[in-house]
């Protein structure tokens, strides 16, 4: 099927079979590789993107369900006010290690801060639990989100 995919403010005409995960259209067809493949079953969060502003797992979001929706990926976060603050905090605190999960972590963190500008440590843990980090950078992710909240408040 052919669909118009609205991604980071641009419209892409893409062709994919129904049932194709948005993840593989983004990665293999559009060759935007910031969105990661980690598990394919929405268990790790590495593939997190925003659909109409809310985080979704792109490996379990099918292409036929995103027609007309606004999809946003990590590549657009520098132009997003909250995204830029999270990226700045991530660099300040050296949050990343291997980095493979971090696009997804940042997309979820931006989702959290758009709903709740000053989350507590518990609220961060509750919101971010679905994003796995095998390097276990969780302490710094939590600190990074709190630092981003400070940057946005200033």
């Amino acid at each position: 099927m052919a669909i118009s995919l609205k991604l980071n403010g641009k419209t892409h005409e893409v062709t994919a079979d129904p049932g194709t995960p948005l993840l593989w259209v983004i990665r293999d067809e559009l060759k935007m590789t910031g969105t990661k493949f980690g598990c394919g079953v929405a268990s790790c969060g590495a593939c997190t993107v925003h659909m109409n502003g809310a985080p979704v797992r792109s490996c379990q979001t099918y292409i036929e369900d995103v027609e007309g929706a606004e999809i946003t990926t990590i590549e657009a976060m520098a132009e997003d006010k909250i995204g830029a603050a999270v990226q700045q905090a991530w660099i300040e605190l050296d949050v990343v290690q291997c980095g493979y999960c971090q696009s997804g972590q940042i997309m979820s963190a931006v989702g959290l801060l758009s709903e709740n500008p000053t989350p507590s440590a518990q609220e961060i843990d509750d919101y971010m639990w679905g994003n796995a980090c095998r390097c276990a950078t969780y302490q710094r992710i939590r600190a990074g989100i709190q630092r981003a909240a400070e940057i946005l408040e200033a």
Partner: protein
Amino acid sequence: MTVSPTRRGFLKGAAAAGAILVVGLRPDGAVAAAGDPAMINPFVKIGPDGAVTAIVKHFEKGQGPATGLSTLIAEEMGLRMDQISYEFAPSDPAVYNNTLFGPFQGTGGSTAMANSYLQYRQAGAAAREMLLQAAAQEWGVAATDLRLVEGMIEGAGQSAPLADFVATAATLDAPAELRLKDVSELRLIGNPDVRRLDSAIKGDGTAMFAMDLHLPNQMVAMIARPEQQRATALSFDDSAARDVTGYIRAAILPNQAGVVVYAEHTWAAMQARDALVVEWDTSAAEARSSDQIEAEIRAALEAEPTYNVNAADIAATRAAIDGAATVVEETFYFPLLAHAPMEPLNCTIEQTAEGDIVLHDGAQMPTGPHMALAEIFQLPMEKVRINTMLAGGSFGRRATPTADYQVEAALAFILTDRSRPVHLVWSREDDLRSG
């Protein structure tokens, strides 16, 4: 082989254009003359614009050698951390070996900094001294009156960017003796304010992991593996797989360890592989259950030891336990677990127009796949190259001197006409079931 820095010479030389200064250790310890081919493998490279690049011989899986080794060069060259970048070294066990592993390039066991520390500081110090010497000659002053500070050469009433002296420095002999900076002079080593060099690219989606490579015209390959280890593929039926858009074909691997599915993209490879019906020969396959394996391990613990027995130690330990006031007894049993790095295993193989084989891989032990691929493709080592890319974790899984997944990719590639690169991808299910 261990490195004895004092016995090893430094080499330097100009690249073809004459404007790039490269500094590194030559494997035989001699100081290289200009034009010596050994100079093609430097630890630090300086471009005609003064851009300094650390050539990192260890792979980056998050543990930090890209930043760490760059810091050593920047320290000795008086650079700020934003004045140095890094590249991963090619595979060359003679030049980029882990000096604690012997003639083998690889990363593991927390050795990256330990085996590189003096090597990279000396390379940075040699580059610094050659640049200062070049400036001293040009200005007619003593090199000892000059300093290299944040990319500027200063002293004797003069000041100019290091870029001005790269061409001259490239014609000089490497210094016979090097002075490393004194501990009191260190600004970067041990400084907690130094930040990772790879934070920004890992936060904006531009970092290139092996999984992210899309070579022109590449195919994606996935392997249908047996449920039981060591089962072998006898035949397969791909009639359902043929209905998958993007499916190309399937073939039994030369070692019969599985059936490789080739497709235009990853999703097609996944679907086609799921649709494949494979007939397996399980006569020589692993048939024990997890419970049986655990029972065997527990029985072995209870049995009298027969391997590497130290009877005196055993007797002493038993006596200590027997005489103890309190004995605490607990049993811990860990099942076989997958290492499960976040980035599933994958690598890409292509053949160049010159017939070279290039492996693109988050290569933890490059010498392993380098040797394996040379054997599989029947090529001399110099015709096999490894492009080391960022790795999304390892936790031991990529530390494979036997090169298991790279060999799979090579076997998948050798079954093709080699006109298209092959990107071998493991799914998470592959990792957890067969990892």
